Protein backbone atom coordinates (compact mmCIF):
# COMPACT_ATOMS: atom_id res chain seq x y z
CA UNK A 1 0.00 0.00 0.00
CA UNK A 2 1.48 3.34 -0.97
CA UNK A 3 1.60 6.37 1.29
CA UNK A 4 -1.47 8.12 -0.04
CA UNK A 5 -3.67 5.05 0.18
CA UNK A 6 -2.39 4.34 3.68
CA UNK A 7 -3.11 7.85 4.84
CA UNK A 8 -6.57 7.79 3.28
CA UNK A 9 -7.34 4.50 5.01
CA UNK A 10 -6.24 5.88 8.39
CA UNK A 11 -8.27 9.03 7.85
CA UNK A 12 -11.23 6.85 7.01
CA UNK A 13 -10.98 5.22 10.43
CA UNK A 14 -9.16 2.01 9.50
CA UNK A 15 -7.32 0.97 12.66
CA UNK A 16 -5.49 -1.82 10.91
CA UNK A 17 -4.00 0.67 8.47
CA UNK A 18 -2.67 2.75 11.34
CA UNK A 19 -1.11 -0.33 12.94
CA UNK A 20 0.55 -1.09 9.63
CA UNK A 21 1.86 2.45 9.44
CA UNK A 22 3.29 2.23 12.96
CA UNK A 23 4.96 -1.13 12.33
CA UNK A 24 6.49 0.15 9.11
CA UNK A 25 7.90 3.42 10.42
CA UNK A 26 8.68 2.77 14.08
CA UNK A 27 12.27 1.73 13.44
CA UNK A 28 13.27 4.86 11.53
CA UNK A 29 11.45 7.18 13.91
CA UNK A 30 12.97 5.53 16.95
CA UNK A 31 16.51 5.71 15.52
CA UNK A 32 16.17 9.40 14.72
CA UNK A 33 14.94 10.11 18.23
CA UNK A 34 17.71 8.01 19.77
CA UNK A 35 20.43 9.80 17.83
CA UNK A 36 19.20 13.13 19.12
CA UNK A 37 18.46 12.10 22.70
CA UNK A 38 21.02 9.33 23.33
CA UNK A 39 18.76 7.38 25.68
CA UNK A 40 16.50 4.48 24.86
CA UNK A 41 13.74 5.45 27.25
CA UNK A 42 13.68 9.05 26.10
CA UNK A 43 13.70 7.88 22.50
CA UNK A 44 10.72 5.61 23.19
CA UNK A 45 8.75 8.47 24.70
CA UNK A 46 9.61 10.77 21.84
CA UNK A 47 8.64 8.09 19.32
CA UNK A 48 5.28 7.60 20.98
CA UNK A 49 4.61 11.34 21.10
CA UNK A 50 5.58 11.63 17.47
CA UNK A 51 3.07 9.00 16.38
CA UNK A 52 0.32 10.52 18.50
CA UNK A 53 0.98 13.88 16.90
CA UNK A 54 1.14 12.32 13.46
CA UNK A 55 -2.18 10.57 13.99
CA UNK A 56 -3.76 13.84 15.06
CA UNK A 57 -2.29 15.85 12.18
CA UNK A 58 -2.52 13.24 9.46
CA UNK A 59 -5.02 15.39 7.59
CA UNK A 60 -2.28 17.94 6.93
CA UNK A 61 -0.18 15.44 4.98
CA UNK A 62 -0.27 16.65 1.41
CA UNK A 63 1.73 13.89 -0.18
CA UNK A 64 4.41 16.17 -1.60
CA UNK A 65 7.12 13.92 -0.20
CA UNK A 66 7.32 10.47 1.30
CA UNK A 67 5.32 9.77 4.42
CA UNK A 68 8.51 8.59 6.16
CA UNK A 69 10.07 12.03 5.67
CA UNK A 70 6.95 13.73 7.03
CA UNK A 71 7.04 11.48 10.08
CA UNK A 72 10.78 12.01 10.50
CA UNK A 73 10.29 15.76 10.65
CA UNK A 74 7.71 15.39 13.40
CA UNK A 75 10.00 13.02 15.29
CA UNK A 76 13.00 15.32 14.97
CA UNK A 77 11.00 18.22 16.29
CA UNK A 78 9.74 16.23 19.27
CA UNK A 79 13.21 14.89 20.04
CA UNK A 80 14.85 18.32 19.79
CA UNK A 81 12.22 19.76 22.08
CA UNK A 82 12.74 16.95 24.57
CA UNK A 83 16.50 17.48 24.40
CA UNK A 84 16.04 21.18 25.12
CA UNK A 85 13.84 20.32 28.11
CA UNK A 86 16.32 17.77 29.39
CA UNK A 87 19.21 20.21 29.25
CA UNK A 88 18.09 21.73 32.52
CA UNK A 89 17.74 18.42 34.38
CA UNK A 90 20.40 16.11 35.77
CA UNK A 91 19.68 12.38 35.89
CA UNK A 92 19.85 10.68 39.28
CA UNK A 93 22.34 8.06 38.19
CA UNK A 94 24.69 10.75 36.88
CA UNK A 95 24.83 9.45 33.33
CA UNK A 96 23.61 11.67 30.56
CA UNK A 97 23.24 8.92 27.99
CA UNK A 98 23.33 5.21 27.47
CA UNK A 99 26.93 4.06 27.05
CA UNK A 100 27.10 1.92 23.94
CA UNK A 101 28.92 -1.35 24.28
CA UNK A 102 32.07 -1.48 22.23
CA UNK A 103 32.13 -4.28 19.72
CA UNK A 104 35.57 -5.15 21.02
CA UNK A 105 34.47 -5.15 24.63
CA UNK A 106 36.83 -2.35 25.49
CA UNK A 107 35.29 -0.16 28.18
CA UNK A 108 37.65 2.72 27.39
CA UNK A 109 36.64 2.71 23.75
CA UNK A 110 33.01 2.63 24.80
CA UNK A 111 33.47 5.60 27.12
CA UNK A 112 35.25 7.58 24.42
CA UNK A 113 32.50 6.78 21.97
CA UNK A 114 29.89 7.91 24.45
CA UNK A 115 31.71 11.15 25.11
CA UNK A 116 32.04 11.82 21.40
CA UNK A 117 28.34 11.21 20.92
CA UNK A 118 27.47 13.51 23.80
CA UNK A 119 29.54 16.31 22.29
CA UNK A 120 27.91 15.89 18.91
CA UNK A 121 24.38 15.83 20.32
CA UNK A 122 25.03 18.88 22.49
CA UNK A 123 26.50 20.80 19.58
CA UNK A 124 23.61 19.93 17.25
CA UNK A 125 20.87 20.73 19.75
CA UNK A 126 22.54 24.07 20.53
CA UNK A 127 22.39 25.19 16.91
CA UNK A 128 19.85 27.84 15.96
CA UNK A 129 17.02 27.15 13.58
CA UNK A 130 16.80 26.34 10.72
CA UNK A 131 20.31 24.84 10.73
CA UNK A 132 19.51 22.49 13.59
CA UNK A 133 16.52 20.99 11.84
CA UNK A 134 18.28 20.56 8.51
CA UNK A 135 21.32 18.86 10.05
CA UNK A 136 19.16 16.60 12.23
CA UNK A 137 17.02 15.60 9.26
CA UNK A 138 20.07 14.96 7.06
CA UNK A 139 22.32 13.04 9.44
CA UNK A 140 20.04 11.71 12.20
CA UNK A 141 16.92 10.91 10.16
CA UNK A 142 18.85 9.85 7.03
CA UNK A 143 16.84 12.02 4.66
CA UNK A 144 18.22 13.19 1.37
CA UNK A 145 18.43 16.87 0.54
CA UNK A 146 15.56 16.55 -1.92
CA UNK A 147 13.37 14.91 0.72
CA UNK A 148 14.23 17.66 3.20
CA UNK A 149 13.31 20.27 0.62
CA UNK A 150 9.99 18.56 -0.09
CA UNK A 151 9.10 18.05 3.55
CA UNK A 152 10.03 21.51 4.76
CA UNK A 153 8.70 23.27 1.68
CA UNK A 154 11.97 25.07 1.05
CA UNK A 155 13.84 25.27 -2.23
CA UNK A 156 16.67 22.81 -2.66
CA UNK A 157 19.25 25.58 -2.87
CA UNK A 158 18.05 26.99 0.41
CA UNK A 159 18.37 23.58 2.06
CA UNK A 160 21.92 23.23 0.75
CA UNK A 161 22.80 26.68 2.02
CA UNK A 162 21.33 25.91 5.44
CA UNK A 163 23.26 22.66 5.58
CA UNK A 164 26.53 24.35 4.67
CA UNK A 165 26.12 27.11 7.22
CA UNK A 166 24.95 24.66 9.84
CA UNK A 167 28.03 22.51 9.35
CA UNK A 168 30.24 25.58 9.67
CA UNK A 169 28.60 26.56 12.94
CA UNK A 170 28.77 23.01 14.16
CA UNK A 171 32.48 22.91 13.38
CA UNK A 172 33.06 26.04 15.42
CA UNK A 173 31.12 24.64 18.36
CA UNK A 174 32.90 21.31 18.26
CA UNK A 175 36.28 23.03 18.15
CA UNK A 176 35.34 25.08 21.17
CA UNK A 177 34.02 22.02 23.04
CA UNK A 178 37.07 19.89 22.32
CA UNK A 179 39.49 22.66 23.20
CA UNK A 180 37.71 23.33 26.46
Amino acid at each position, binding site marked *: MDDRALVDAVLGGDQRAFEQLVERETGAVFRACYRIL*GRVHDAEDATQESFVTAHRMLG*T*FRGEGPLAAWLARIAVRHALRAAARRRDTVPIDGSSADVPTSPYGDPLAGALEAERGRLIRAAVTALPEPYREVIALRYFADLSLAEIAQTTGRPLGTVKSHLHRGLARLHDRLVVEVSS
Partner: protein
Amino acid sequence: MSDARARRDVPPAGDGARAPGSRLPLAPDPPARREDPEDAALRGVAAELERYAAAAMPEPPSGLAARIVSAVRAEAPRSPVRRLLDAALPPRWPALPGAVADVLRAAVGLGKPVALGVRMEAAALVLVLVVATAVGGTLLAGGAGALLAAITAPGPTPAAPSTVPPRTVGPIPSPEVSSSVAPSLAASPSARPAERSPRATPMAPAPAGLPWATPGAPLGTPNGSRAPAASASPSPSPSPLPSARTSPEPSEPSPTPSGEGQATGASPTESAGH
Protein backbone atom coordinates in the same frame (compact mmCIF):
# COMPACT_ATOMS: atom_id res chain seq x y z
CA MET B 1 38.46 13.27 6.29
CA SER B 2 40.93 10.69 5.10
CA ASP B 3 40.01 11.37 1.48
CA ALA B 4 40.64 15.04 1.91
CA ARG B 5 43.92 14.42 3.60
CA ALA B 6 44.97 11.99 0.88
CA ARG B 7 44.00 14.52 -1.74
CA ARG B 8 46.10 17.13 -0.04
CA ASP B 9 49.06 14.78 0.15
CA VAL B 10 49.01 14.17 -3.57
CA PRO B 11 51.21 16.75 -5.32
CA PRO B 12 49.35 18.91 -7.73
CA ALA B 13 49.64 18.14 -11.36
CA GLY B 14 50.54 21.70 -12.31
CA ASP B 15 53.27 23.94 -11.00
CA GLY B 16 55.86 23.10 -13.60
CA ALA B 17 55.32 19.39 -13.84
CA ARG B 18 55.76 18.03 -17.29
CA ALA B 19 53.74 15.44 -18.94
CA PRO B 20 55.70 12.48 -20.15
CA GLY B 21 56.94 13.12 -23.63
CA SER B 22 55.99 16.79 -23.60
CA ARG B 23 58.23 19.83 -23.57
CA LEU B 24 55.63 22.26 -22.39
CA PRO B 25 54.62 22.39 -18.79
CA LEU B 26 51.05 21.39 -18.03
CA ALA B 27 48.59 24.14 -17.36
CA PRO B 28 47.97 24.70 -13.66
CA ASP B 29 44.65 23.60 -12.16
CA PRO B 30 42.01 26.25 -11.94
CA PRO B 31 41.62 27.64 -8.43
CA ALA B 32 38.09 26.23 -8.06
CA ARG B 33 39.34 22.68 -8.22
CA ARG B 34 41.75 23.11 -5.34
CA GLU B 35 40.73 21.94 -1.93
CA ASP B 36 39.40 24.72 0.26
CA PRO B 37 40.42 24.28 3.90
CA GLU B 38 37.02 25.40 5.03
CA ASP B 39 35.32 22.83 2.82
CA ALA B 40 37.68 20.20 4.14
CA ALA B 41 36.75 21.10 7.71
CA LEU B 42 33.07 20.95 6.91
CA ARG B 43 33.54 17.64 5.17
CA GLY B 44 35.25 16.40 8.29
CA VAL B 45 32.33 17.47 10.45
CA ALA B 46 29.92 15.78 8.06
CA ALA B 47 31.95 12.60 8.18
CA GLU B 48 31.93 12.72 11.96
CA LEU B 49 28.15 13.06 11.98
CA GLU B 50 27.78 10.14 9.60
CA ARG B 51 30.04 8.02 11.74
CA TYR B 52 28.03 8.86 14.84
CA ALA B 53 24.77 8.01 13.08
CA ALA B 54 26.16 4.71 11.85
CA ALA B 55 27.24 3.80 15.37
CA ALA B 56 23.86 4.70 16.90
CA MET B 57 21.66 2.14 15.20
CA PRO B 58 19.64 0.54 17.97
CA GLU B 59 16.60 -1.53 17.20
CA PRO B 60 13.35 -0.34 18.71
CA PRO B 61 12.36 -2.26 21.83
CA SER B 62 9.88 -5.05 21.35
CA GLY B 63 6.36 -4.00 22.04
CA LEU B 64 6.95 -0.35 21.17
CA ALA B 65 4.59 -0.50 18.21
CA ALA B 66 1.81 -2.02 20.32
CA ARG B 67 2.40 0.60 22.98
CA ILE B 68 2.14 3.37 20.41
CA VAL B 69 -1.09 1.98 18.97
CA SER B 70 -2.66 1.68 22.40
CA ALA B 71 -1.49 5.18 23.28
CA VAL B 72 -3.11 6.59 20.18
CA ARG B 73 -6.35 4.77 20.95
CA ALA B 74 -6.36 5.98 24.53
CA GLU B 75 -5.41 9.49 23.64
CA ALA B 76 -6.21 12.05 26.26
CA PRO B 77 -9.77 13.29 26.02
CA ARG B 78 -9.97 16.41 24.00
CA SER B 79 -12.01 19.45 24.76
CA PRO B 80 -15.71 19.37 23.84
CA VAL B 81 -15.17 22.16 21.32
CA ARG B 82 -12.42 20.18 19.64
CA ARG B 83 -14.55 17.07 19.53
CA LEU B 84 -17.46 19.06 18.13
CA LEU B 85 -15.23 20.50 15.42
CA ASP B 86 -13.83 17.09 14.58
CA ALA B 87 -17.32 15.71 14.25
CA ALA B 88 -18.67 18.62 12.26
CA LEU B 89 -15.83 19.28 9.88
CA PRO B 90 -14.48 16.95 7.23
CA PRO B 91 -11.26 15.10 8.06
CA ARG B 92 -9.26 17.02 5.51
CA TRP B 93 -10.06 20.48 6.85
CA PRO B 94 -6.61 21.04 8.51
CA ALA B 95 -5.11 20.83 5.04
CA LEU B 96 -7.27 23.71 3.83
CA PRO B 97 -4.84 26.54 4.77
CA GLY B 98 -2.05 24.63 3.07
CA ALA B 99 -4.05 24.28 -0.10
CA VAL B 100 -4.95 27.97 -0.07
CA ALA B 101 -1.29 28.78 0.53
CA ASP B 102 -0.40 26.72 -2.52
CA VAL B 103 -2.85 28.71 -4.59
CA LEU B 104 -1.42 31.99 -3.26
CA ARG B 105 2.11 30.80 -3.93
CA ALA B 106 1.16 29.88 -7.45
CA ALA B 107 -0.45 33.28 -7.90
CA VAL B 108 2.51 35.23 -6.51
CA GLY B 109 5.20 33.07 -8.03
CA LEU B 110 7.06 29.89 -7.30
CA GLY B 111 10.65 29.72 -6.15
CA LYS B 112 10.37 32.68 -3.84
CA PRO B 113 12.33 32.79 -0.59
CA VAL B 114 11.19 31.05 2.55
CA ALA B 115 10.02 34.25 4.21
CA LEU B 116 7.53 34.82 1.43
CA GLY B 117 6.31 31.26 1.77
CA VAL B 118 5.78 31.78 5.48
CA ARG B 119 3.94 34.98 4.75
CA MET B 120 1.79 33.18 2.22
CA GLU B 121 0.97 30.51 4.80
CA ALA B 122 0.03 33.16 7.33
CA ALA B 123 -2.04 35.07 4.80
CA ALA B 124 -3.80 31.90 3.76
CA LEU B 125 -4.54 31.03 7.35
CA VAL B 126 -5.94 34.49 8.01
CA LEU B 127 -7.99 34.32 4.83
CA VAL B 128 -9.46 30.96 5.76
CA LEU B 129 -10.22 32.14 9.28
CA VAL B 130 -11.90 35.31 8.07
CA VAL B 131 -14.05 33.45 5.58
CA ALA B 132 -14.92 30.78 8.12
CA THR B 133 -15.80 33.41 10.70
CA ALA B 134 -17.96 35.30 8.24
CA VAL B 135 -19.82 32.21 7.12
CA GLY B 136 -20.22 30.96 10.65
CA GLY B 137 -21.40 34.33 11.89
CA THR B 138 -23.91 34.61 9.10
CA LEU B 139 -25.28 31.17 9.75
CA LEU B 140 -25.39 31.82 13.48
CA ALA B 141 -27.15 35.15 13.03
CA GLY B 142 -29.64 33.62 10.63
CA GLY B 143 -30.37 30.77 12.98
CA ALA B 144 -30.71 33.07 15.97
CA GLY B 145 -32.99 35.37 14.03
CA ALA B 146 -35.21 32.52 12.94
CA LEU B 147 -35.31 31.19 16.48
CA LEU B 148 -36.23 34.58 17.91
CA ALA B 149 -38.89 35.06 15.27
CA ALA B 150 -40.35 31.66 16.09
CA ILE B 151 -40.40 32.45 19.80
CA THR B 152 -41.69 35.99 19.73
CA ALA B 153 -44.40 35.51 17.11
CA PRO B 154 -46.86 32.88 18.41
CA GLY B 155 -49.75 34.04 16.27
CA PRO B 156 -51.02 36.77 13.96
CA THR B 157 -51.01 40.16 15.64
CA PRO B 158 -54.03 42.48 15.29
CA ALA B 159 -53.61 45.42 13.05
CA ALA B 160 -52.69 48.58 14.89
CA PRO B 161 -55.36 51.34 14.85
CA SER B 162 -54.39 54.06 12.50
CA THR B 163 -55.13 57.71 13.27
CA VAL B 164 -54.77 58.72 9.70
CA PRO B 165 -57.78 57.91 7.58
CA PRO B 166 -56.99 55.93 4.58
CA ARG B 167 -56.50 57.95 1.52
CA THR B 168 -58.99 57.16 -1.13
CA VAL B 169 -58.47 57.96 -4.68
CA GLY B 170 -61.69 58.57 -6.42
CA PRO B 171 -63.69 61.08 -8.37
CA ILE B 172 -63.69 64.69 -7.32
CA PRO B 173 -66.68 65.37 -5.03
CA SER B 174 -69.52 67.21 -6.53
CA PRO B 175 -70.53 70.74 -5.40
CA GLU B 176 -73.48 69.34 -3.44
CA VAL B 177 -71.20 67.19 -1.43
CA SER B 178 -68.87 70.16 -0.89
CA SER B 179 -71.64 72.34 0.44
CA SER B 180 -72.71 69.71 2.89
CA VAL B 181 -69.18 69.46 4.16
CA ALA B 182 -68.60 73.21 4.12
CA PRO B 183 -69.95 74.11 7.62
CA SER B 184 -67.64 71.75 9.31
CA LEU B 185 -64.73 73.05 7.33
CA ALA B 186 -65.71 76.66 8.01
CA ALA B 187 -65.54 75.96 11.73
CA SER B 188 -61.82 75.49 11.46
CA PRO B 189 -60.34 78.42 9.60
CA SER B 190 -56.84 77.32 10.15
CA ALA B 191 -57.57 74.24 8.12
CA ARG B 192 -58.48 76.29 5.07
CA PRO B 193 -56.07 79.19 4.84
CA ALA B 194 -56.75 79.63 1.21
CA GLU B 195 -60.37 80.55 1.87
CA ARG B 196 -59.50 83.23 4.41
CA SER B 197 -57.03 85.14 2.31
CA PRO B 198 -56.96 87.83 1.19
CA ARG B 199 -60.07 89.34 2.83
CA ALA B 200 -59.15 88.30 6.34
CA THR B 201 -55.85 90.13 6.25
CA PRO B 202 -55.87 93.71 7.66
CA MET B 203 -53.72 95.03 4.85
CA ALA B 204 -56.17 94.05 2.21
CA PRO B 205 -56.96 96.98 -0.07
CA ALA B 206 -60.46 98.22 0.11
CA PRO B 207 -62.54 98.18 -2.95
CA ALA B 208 -62.79 101.37 -4.83
CA GLY B 209 -65.90 103.49 -4.33
CA LEU B 210 -66.39 102.84 -0.63
CA PRO B 211 -67.02 105.89 1.56
CA TRP B 212 -64.24 105.17 4.06
CA ALA B 213 -61.68 104.55 1.47
CA THR B 214 -60.15 107.99 1.63
CA PRO B 215 -56.92 108.60 -0.12
CA GLY B 216 -53.88 109.08 2.15
CA ALA B 217 -55.41 107.26 5.06
CA PRO B 218 -53.89 103.99 6.13
CA LEU B 219 -55.54 101.02 4.77
CA GLY B 220 -57.72 98.95 6.96
CA THR B 221 -59.71 101.66 8.78
CA PRO B 222 -61.86 104.39 7.36
CA ASN B 223 -60.56 107.15 9.64
CA GLY B 224 -56.96 106.17 9.81
CA SER B 225 -57.04 104.45 13.17
CA ARG B 226 -55.54 101.05 13.33
CA ALA B 227 -57.73 98.12 13.73
CA PRO B 228 -57.14 95.88 16.70
CA ALA B 229 -54.63 93.21 16.04
CA ALA B 230 -57.02 90.59 17.22
CA SER B 231 -59.26 91.32 14.34
CA ALA B 232 -56.78 89.74 12.07
CA SER B 233 -57.79 86.38 13.38
CA PRO B 234 -61.43 85.97 12.82
CA SER B 235 -63.31 83.81 15.24
CA PRO B 236 -65.06 80.89 13.79
CA SER B 237 -68.21 81.69 15.73
CA PRO B 238 -70.73 83.28 13.48
CA SER B 239 -71.56 86.85 14.33
CA PRO B 240 -74.96 88.33 13.59
CA LEU B 241 -73.49 91.77 13.06
CA PRO B 242 -72.27 92.62 9.63
CA SER B 243 -68.56 93.00 9.57
CA ALA B 244 -66.58 94.92 7.03
CA ARG B 245 -63.72 92.53 7.40
CA THR B 246 -65.57 89.29 7.54
CA SER B 247 -68.49 90.12 5.37
CA PRO B 248 -67.97 88.48 2.13
CA GLU B 249 -69.40 91.26 0.01
CA PRO B 250 -68.92 94.90 1.11
CA SER B 251 -70.96 96.19 -1.73
CA GLU B 252 -73.83 97.33 0.50
CA PRO B 253 -72.90 100.31 2.72
CA SER B 254 -73.29 100.12 6.46
CA PRO B 255 -76.29 101.95 8.01
CA THR B 256 -74.09 103.63 10.62
CA PRO B 257 -72.62 106.94 9.39
CA SER B 258 -69.25 106.58 11.11
CA GLY B 259 -66.91 103.80 10.53
CA GLU B 260 -66.08 103.40 14.23
CA GLY B 261 -69.07 101.27 14.77
CA GLN B 262 -67.97 99.12 12.02
CA ALA B 263 -64.47 98.78 13.26
CA THR B 264 -65.24 98.15 16.92
CA GLY B 265 -68.66 96.70 17.05
CA ALA B 266 -68.19 94.48 14.10
CA SER B 267 -65.05 92.88 15.36
CA PRO B 268 -65.53 89.20 15.27
CA THR B 269 -63.12 88.80 18.13
CA GLU B 270 -65.15 90.98 20.44
CA SER B 271 -68.28 89.27 19.46
CA ALA B 272 -66.65 86.01 20.14
CA GLY B 273 -65.34 87.26 23.48
CA HIS B 274 -68.68 88.41 24.64
